[in-house]
């Protein structure tokens, strides 16, 4: 491991930690504009996290150590994921430890801990949210894996930095498989990040909430970590999407000039992606929970089709 690789790794992690709440704030602001509401300030997520960190934590009676441990595990998993996904540069020493499949595993680990913690306290909402989360998760995971497999088939490797380098360097052409995979990935990201067709991040209505139901019992620093982790998850998914489908501009190796150029480009791409997310959320209505299998089944089908189309047309 070279010193510059280590530095670029640290820088990327710091950028992810700093930008993630900003991305959430930006999406909320865009959504408010699109819905003709007064927009909340862009920096509101930072203020919320800061406020929550300075409060005293209240933990339910009978909560096991798992309940206290979970926010740290979830936050840690999301930080690991942020270190693996190439958002600024592809020279990431940490990324050699884990490939795209391990990345899906990291997300699954976070999901499992948060679901267990939600059931731990024994409230009705917690277990309801946990069950729904696992229900959505087990449908979304195969679709996400299939999308990553398609990218791996094209580039011949499951390591994300290698995939990005191959995809950024291929000849210009029309790749129907990547278009299908892109749509499938968007659908999976919406489901995984508790966004509107599947879940509504802005509601606390008992019949519809999934993610919010699980974190209902948390307060203060625990809640702050969970909110930050949720923001990081959105950031990670956006960066995976950008790395797979818009890889141009990510610096290769530890090229400092390239990284300096990659940073504003990343911010621009994320801003466009956040606006697109707000647009999707505004245009679509929330699905009934039992329609979610259909939504995610479609995503899975698209991802499988992407793989098949790649094998038939592009090999």
């Amino acid at each position, binding site marked *: 491991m070279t010193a510059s690789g280590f530095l670029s790794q640290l820088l990327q992690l710091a950028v992810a930690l700093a930008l993630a709440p900003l991305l959430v704030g930006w999406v909320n602001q865009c959504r408010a504009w699109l819905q003709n509401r007064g927009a909340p300030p862009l920096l509101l997520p930072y203020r919320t996290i800061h406020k929550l960190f300075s409060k005293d934590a209240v933990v339910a009676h009978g909560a096991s150590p798992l309940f206290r441990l979970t926010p740290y595990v979830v936050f840690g998993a999301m930080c690991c994921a942020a270190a693996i996904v190439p958002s600024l540069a592809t020279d990431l020493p940490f990324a050699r430890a884990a490939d795209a499949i391990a990345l899906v595993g990291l997300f699954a680990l976070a999901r499992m801990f948060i679901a267990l913690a939600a059931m731990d306290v024994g409230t009705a909402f917690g277990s309801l949210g946990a069950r729904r989360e696992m229900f959505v998760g087990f449908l979304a995971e195969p679709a996400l894996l299939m999308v990553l497999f398609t990218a791996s088939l094209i580039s011949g490797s499951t390591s994300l930095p290698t995939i990005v380098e191959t995809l950024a360097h*291929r*000849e210009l*052409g*029309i*790749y*129907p*498989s990547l*278009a*299908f995979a892109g749509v499938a990935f968007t659908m999976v990201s919406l489901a995984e990040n508790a966004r509107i067709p599947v879940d509504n991040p802005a509601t606390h209505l008992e019949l519809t909430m999934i993610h919010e139901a699980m974190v209902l019992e948390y307060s203060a620093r625990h809640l702050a970590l969970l909110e930050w982790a949720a923001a990081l998850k959105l950031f990670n998914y956006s960066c995976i999407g950008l790395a797979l489908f818009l890889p141009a501009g990510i610096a290769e190796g530890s090229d400092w000039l390239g990284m300096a150029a990659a940073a504003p480009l990343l911010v621009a791409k994320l801003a466009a992606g956040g606006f697109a997310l707000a647009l999707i959320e505004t245009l679509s209505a929330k699905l009934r929970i039992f329609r979610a*299998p*259909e939504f995610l*089944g*479609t995503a899975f*089908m*698209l991802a*499988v*089709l992407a793989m*098949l*189309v790649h*094998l*038939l*047309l*592009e*090999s």
Partner: protein
Amino acid sequence: MAGLPLYAQLINLLAAILLLLAFAMLAQRRVLSLIDLFAAQGVALTASTAIVAWGTGQTHLWFSAALTLVLKVFVLPWILYRLIRRLDVRWDVEGMVNIPTTMLIGIVLVVFSFNLAYPISQLASTVTRSTLGIAIACVMLSFLMMITRRKAIPQVIGFLSMENGLFFAATSATYGMPMVVELGIALDVLVGMVILGVFFFQIREQFDSLDLKHLEKLKEPE
């Protein structure tokens, strides 16, 4: 992939879109949206035929493309729309199997037809030979749609979209059939549509419903 000329890449893209539309029809619940999807399939087919004509210089394919545009994008959907208005049937389509299962069966069918087409397309010498698998898959998916739907109109749309798949196979794998054959098929489809339209009214008059399960009984109700 990257070595292919632009027109072949465009045809590959349109082939993928056709496959996607076939799946969308399989998953669609509403009859009116089904007709729109059928018209969209017609547009994709017209575009692919025109691109084959442009890329290979086969002038008679321009006529096929024009025929496809008129018949499958305007006339047939218009007839279907009119039929639906006259029959006053706007219900959601009832499937025999639920939609996620249907789509999984569809994926299995696609894998099957890709396998089937692979050795055949190795023998062909055209640039767009790999789309043969997609054409077969479209035919299979339309067939599946006819099997899994109970009502008459979705079955007829399945039949028509099966013809779309066959037409795509003909243009992309072999650069089109002779003009006489194409004209004959186009006329057949049109006449078939008119006859089926008459059938719809007959079926409904007889059974008060367009559900084809009534046709399975051979005896008169006692």
